[in-house]
């Protein structure tokens, strides 16, 4: 089974994300980056499937030159190969432009299953997986908390408010995985050294047959109009229990229509 994992390389979790006020994009230059912890879960799930069923795991990443460290992390975890979409013409793409580029790259790779995180942990749009499935013409199975493949059918437990739904689709398909699906392995020394020998194919927008109308700022249909901080949270209310604490809490919750 050939599995493609779409991943994003994001600023380290310990870095406070800064927004460029002019472009309203996340500042990535000069910022230490890593394989998105959400995407690492998709990589882990792909590796487990490949261990069980055989086949390859190919990472597909769109990002600048400094995305290499994050790509190598996935290769060190055990991914077979990687595809890096790196081209200044791709910078400033919106979610749809990103999806077009990823879809074009995936079409160049034989695949049975595409795995993605539900959303990235820097911009959190969650738009790309659905768009990608549409562009590839395959069914999307989303919010997977568990994933199995049996023959030509992929089945997931889809997280829902009340528990989970069991959903299946024939391969090829796209699955988005949730945070709780697994605990990713970490790269070992052997993995790090082995990753150096693994192939990272590089594509530009032109290699993918994409022009300024498809990707980059000119191709973007989304515009970020403003970026601001969330409103300050109102102060909490302290209820002192003088025999009627429970009643006061119940009244407070009832006032918020929570009970």
């Amino acid at each position, binding site marked *: 089974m050939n599995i493609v994992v779409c991943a994003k390389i994001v600023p380290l979790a310990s870095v406070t994300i800064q927004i460029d006020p002019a472009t309203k994009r996340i500042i990535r230059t000069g910022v*230490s980056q*890593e394989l998105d912890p959400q995407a690492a879960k998709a990589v882990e799930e792909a590796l487990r499937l490949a261990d069980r069923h055989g086949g390859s795991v190919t990472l597909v990443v769109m990002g600048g030159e400094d995305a*290499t*460290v994050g790509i*190598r*992390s996935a290769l*060190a975890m055990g991914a077979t190969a990687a595809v890096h979409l790196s081209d200044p013409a791709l910078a400033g793409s919106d979610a749809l432009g990103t999806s077009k580029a990823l879809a074009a790259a995936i079409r160049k790779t034989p695949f049975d299953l595409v795995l993605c995180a539900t959303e990235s942990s820097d911009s959190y749009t969650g738009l790309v997986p659905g768009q990608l499935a549409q562009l590839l013409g395959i069914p999307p199975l989303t919010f997977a908390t568990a994933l199995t493949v049996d023959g030509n059918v992929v089945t997931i437990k889809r997280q829902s408010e009340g528990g989970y739904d069991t959903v299946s689709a024939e391969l090829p398909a796209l699955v988005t995985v949730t945070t709780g699906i697994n*605990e*990713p*392995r*970490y*790269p*070992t*020394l052997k*993995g*790090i050294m082995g*990753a150096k020998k693994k192939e990272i194919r590089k594509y530009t927008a032109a290699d993918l047959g994409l022009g300024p109308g498809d990707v980059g700022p000119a191709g973007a249909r989304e515009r970020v109009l403003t970026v601001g901080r969330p409103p300050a949270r109102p102060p909490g209310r302290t209820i002192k229990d003088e025999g009627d604490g429970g009643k006061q809490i119940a009244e407070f919750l009832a006032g918020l229509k929570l009970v």
Partner: protein
Amino acid sequence: MNARALDEHLEAMVLALHAAVNRAMPHVKDDPALVDQALRDCEEILEVILDGDVAGWLA
């Protein structure tokens, strides 16, 4: 010496150490085998860094 390659290699090593610690910490009380393995993996990486065979890392 390719400074960028060295930077990337050391960053990969440090990220691996970080990931191993992050993987092990939640299991300090419930999975000693996992924690032991993570410690051994960290020790292995640190020994290679301390050896300082830069040419070997980048070979």
